[in-house]
């Protein structure tokens, strides 16, 4: 188990290095530069700035090596567009917000997906199955900003009806602020996981070992928990890693609609303004985060499925 963990971590570091290199290459192939012409800069200032950021040196190997060196020390540099701001500080400030939102969304998605998926499988082709599977199609095909807007509308109506503010429409700060955006953010993944869980559960329901459990006289509820759910949840756990990454990084639209100062928004704004260091910093950070989540989920998978753990 320990060697397995270590091997996965080393693989992870290599993956992150690839991501960093690719980002670096891509950034330097994009036309335009952050010290562009529309700013009032003289040649002297420009030269000073270039020296400051190391832009006067050859891209390869000098800039690349400096970039890698800084990255290895965990220093993402200074933002080109935001005054006096470190990329590290920006990430440190914005990421916890995105992470909180993301974790809550993932919890919604995983709990809902497993529950509804198991339910639809047990009530296959009956009313609960039909209704939930219809909603699942809606959840998968309707983009999150529609749900976000509808959700806000619903909250406004609700607040009007009650006569006081039950849930805030937008903003950030308290748990009440998180609920609606997290639900909206997790909805698509929840729908996807429901489908996955349903098919996986349907497979498990007809397995020989479930029949054995029935032949042993095990009561249905115990069969559900100990024999069906645990085996059916394995494929769901596999996709949970990428799903966590997708949710935490894909929250840009939701962050924008609900005016949440998260990292997704920062990232997209950085791209629009060609903020080299901020783009590279956030990309590598997101990449590392995704890799870490996938490793983490694989380790959890090993804990649930002894076949993976022991081989």
């Amino acid at each position: 188990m320990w060697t397995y963990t270590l091997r996965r971590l080393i693989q992870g570091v290599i993956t992150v290095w690839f991501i960093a290199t690719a980002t670096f290459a891509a950034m330097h192939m994009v036309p335009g530069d952050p010290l562009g012409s529309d700013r009032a800069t003289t040649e002297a200032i420009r030269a000073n700035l270039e020296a400051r950021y190391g832009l006067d040196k050859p891209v390869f190997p000098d800039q690349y090596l400096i970039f890698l060196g800084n990255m290895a020390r965990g220093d993402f540099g200074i933002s080109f567009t935001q005054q006096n701001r470190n990329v590290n500080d920006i990430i440190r400030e914005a990421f916890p917000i995105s992470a909180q939102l993301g974790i809550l969304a993932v919890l919604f998605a995983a709990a809902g997906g497993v529950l509804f998926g198991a339910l639809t499988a047990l009530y296959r082709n009956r009313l609960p199955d039909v209704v939930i599977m219809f909603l699942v199609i809606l959840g998968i095909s309707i983009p999150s900003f529609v749900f976000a807007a509808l959700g806000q509308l619903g909250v406004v109506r609700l607040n009007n009806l009650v006569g006081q503010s039950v849930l805030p429409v937008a903003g950030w700060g308290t748990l009440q602020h998180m609920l609606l955006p997290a639900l909206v953010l997790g909805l698509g993944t929840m729908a996807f996981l429901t489908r996955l869980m349903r098919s996986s559960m349907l497979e498990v329901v007809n397995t020989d070992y479930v029949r054995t459990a029935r032949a042993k006289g095990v009561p249905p509820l115990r069969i559900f928990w100990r024999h069906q759910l645990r085996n059916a949840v394995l494929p769901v756990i596999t996709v949970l890693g990428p799903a966590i990454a997708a949710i935490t990084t894909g929250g840009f639209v939701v962050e924008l609609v609900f005016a949440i100062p998260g990292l997704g928004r920062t990232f997209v704004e950085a791209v629009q303004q060609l903020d080299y260091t901020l783009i590279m910093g956030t990309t590598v950070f997101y990449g590392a985060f995704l890799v870490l989540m996938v490793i983490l989920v694989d380790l959890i998978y090993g804990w649930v499925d002894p076949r993976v753990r022991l081989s």
Partner: protein
Amino acid sequence: MTDGHDHVLTVEHLEVEFDTYGGTVHAVRDVSFGLRRGRTLAIVGESGCGKSVTVQALMGLIPMPPGRVTRGSAKLGDTELLGLPERELNRIRGNRIGMIFQDPMSSLNPTMRIGDQIVETLRVHRGMSIREGLREAVTLLDRVRIPEASQRARQYPFEFSGGMLQRVMIAVALACSPEVLIADEPTTALDVTIQAQILEIMQALQREEGMSIILITHDLGVVARMADDVAVMYAGQIVETGSVDDIFHRGGHPYTIGLRRATPSNDPERKQTLEPIEGSPPDLFHPPVGCGYFARCPHAMRLCETNMPEAFELARSPEGVLHSARCWLQHAAAPRTAAVNQRRSVSS
């Protein structure tokens, strides 16, 4: 076979149907048999003849729908099994009747330790604590001759071989010392040497516990080795039943005789060529009006096509086991043939 014997389990007129997209399959058609206490009854027949469905119906393991039991009774002692509510059935399954299945590799939960899967039976029926249960589980693994039982109990199914897993299945089934063990093709998925070991373990445990066994198989070698009584099934019916000697040496149904001839042998005295039974079993969507074996039977008569033969009684074994066959050749007025053992008492 419902005669003066001490029967642990009596099945009468069992009928099972399945609704499928192609129509209704009449999988089991009027099956009756009795299981003598402490003895082994083998149910023999080719694939799809309804052997497994019969025993799964007794255990309430048939998925309903699409399956349903339309008629019949199955009594374990004084308890009627068919139509018993799930809750009460769960008090019998694993407790008074144990069951093992064909494929041990897929019959155990892959994410549960071997010991825990045995403990589960003991907890459900005996209310044992986990600690007590584990101690008992190790004893059981010992009894099915799994070496280093206490270590093995902590392992998972994927760390076991097929033969070892079938031993585990036997341990699970026998955890509560059931009166009846149903073994649904227990050795089919195993290679021959392992088969012999499993059968030996089953026999030894039967001697120790005095339990009765229903053994489902299509292997006549296994039947000869294990069975006291035999029921031969064909197209959802029992076509012949009797003691193992009656079935092997005095077969009264052309199908039984066909099965014997289609069995390979390494006896140099015997003819080496196998004689397969030509054709295939009838379509159970529309079961034949007459005898199910009509289309393949070398002795078929015109009467067989449209008239269902009743079970004619041929004789009783020295132990008093009734030998009967569902074949018109056993009718008093039937023509004589040398191939089939016919009862001669009534007419001559």
